[in-house]
C-alpha cells in the first residue's frame, strides 16, 4: 500500500481531490458574489442560502473529514448545530423576525 493510498483511505482524499474541492468552493463563492450584482428577483435569497449551506456541508464533510470519520463526531457536531438553529429560530420568532 503506498503512502498516498494509505492517506486517501484513512484520512479522506488525495491532495488533488482537496484542490478540486477548493476549486468548487471558489466557484460557488464567485456565484454568490455574482448574485449581489445580478437581479435574480425572488430567487435571490433562496439561491444565496442554498449556496451557503452547500459550502458549509462541503467544508465540514471533506476538509473536516466528517464524511470519512466515525459517525459519533458527526452526531456531536450536528447536535450542537441543530440545537443552535432551533434555539435561535425560536429566539428570532419571539421577536417577530420572520413576520
Amino acid at each position, binding site marked *: 500500500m503506498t*503512502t498516498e493510498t*494509505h*492517506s486517501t483511505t*484513512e*484520512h*479522506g482524499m488525495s*491532495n488533488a481531490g*482537496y*484542490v478540486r*474541492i*477548493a476549486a468548487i*468552493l*471558489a466557484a460557488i*463563492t464567485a456565484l*454568490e*458574489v455574482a*448574485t*449581489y450584482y445580478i437581479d435574480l428577483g425572488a430567487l435571490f*435569497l433562496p439561491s*444565496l*442560502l442554498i*449556496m*451557503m449551506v452547500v*459550502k*458549509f456541508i462541503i*467544508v*465540514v464533510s*471533506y*476538509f*473536516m473529514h466528517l464524511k470519512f470519520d*466515525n459517525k*459519533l*463526531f458527526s452526531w*456531536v*457536531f*450536528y*447536535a*450542537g*448545530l441543530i*440545537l*443552535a*438553529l432551533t*434555539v*435561535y429560530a425560536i*429566539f*428570532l420568532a419571539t*421577536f417577530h*423576525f420572520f413576520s
Partner: protein
Amino acid sequence: MTADSHADSHGAAHTSTGLSNNKLGMWLFLGSECLLFGGLISTYMLYRGRVGEGPRPSQVFDIPFTSVSSFVLLMSSLTMVLAVSAAHKGDERNTSLWVAITALLGATFVGGQVYEFTAFYNEGMGFTTSLFSSSFYVLTGFHGVHVTVGIIMLMSTVGILKRSKVPGSKAETVEMIGLYWHFVDVVWIIIFTLIYLIPA
C-alpha cells in the same frame, strides 16, 4: 503520557470509545461554538435595520474587498487540509510549510478586517453609533479574534514541530488545529452570506 497518545498505526485510540478523546473533545467544543456564533448572528439579524443616525450596511460594506478576504480565508482551508495530509504521511517539512502558509493567509484576512474596521470608523460607523454597528462589530470582531487565536496556534505548531516537541501523535495535533481552523472558515461562510451579501 495519556491514553490518546497510544493511538495505533491505524488511528484507533485505546479509549473506552475506541476514539481519540482529544478529537472528541474538539468536536464537542466546535458544537458548543455553534451556539456562541448562533447567538451573535441572531442578534445581528435582529438589529441590522436599527441604524439610527449612522450609516446603513449598504452604505459602508465594500463587497469586492470582502469577497477577496473571503476567498483568502477559503484558500487557507485548502492549505490547512494539505498540512494535515502531509502530517498523516509523516512529511514534517511540508507540514510546517503548509501550516506557515495557512497562518500567512489567516494574517492577510485579519489585516483586511482591521483595514475594513478602520474604513467603517472613518465613515462614521463607530462601535456605539447604532445597534447595527454594535452587533456588527461584536460578531465580526469575535470571528476575528478566533482567526487570530488560530494564527497563534498555527505559528506555535510550526515552532514546536521544528523542535520536535509535539507529544503523542504529531498528525493528530495538526488535525486538531485544522478542525478549529476549518470551523472558523465555516463560520465566515455564514457571516459573508448573511451579513454582507443579503441586504438589510
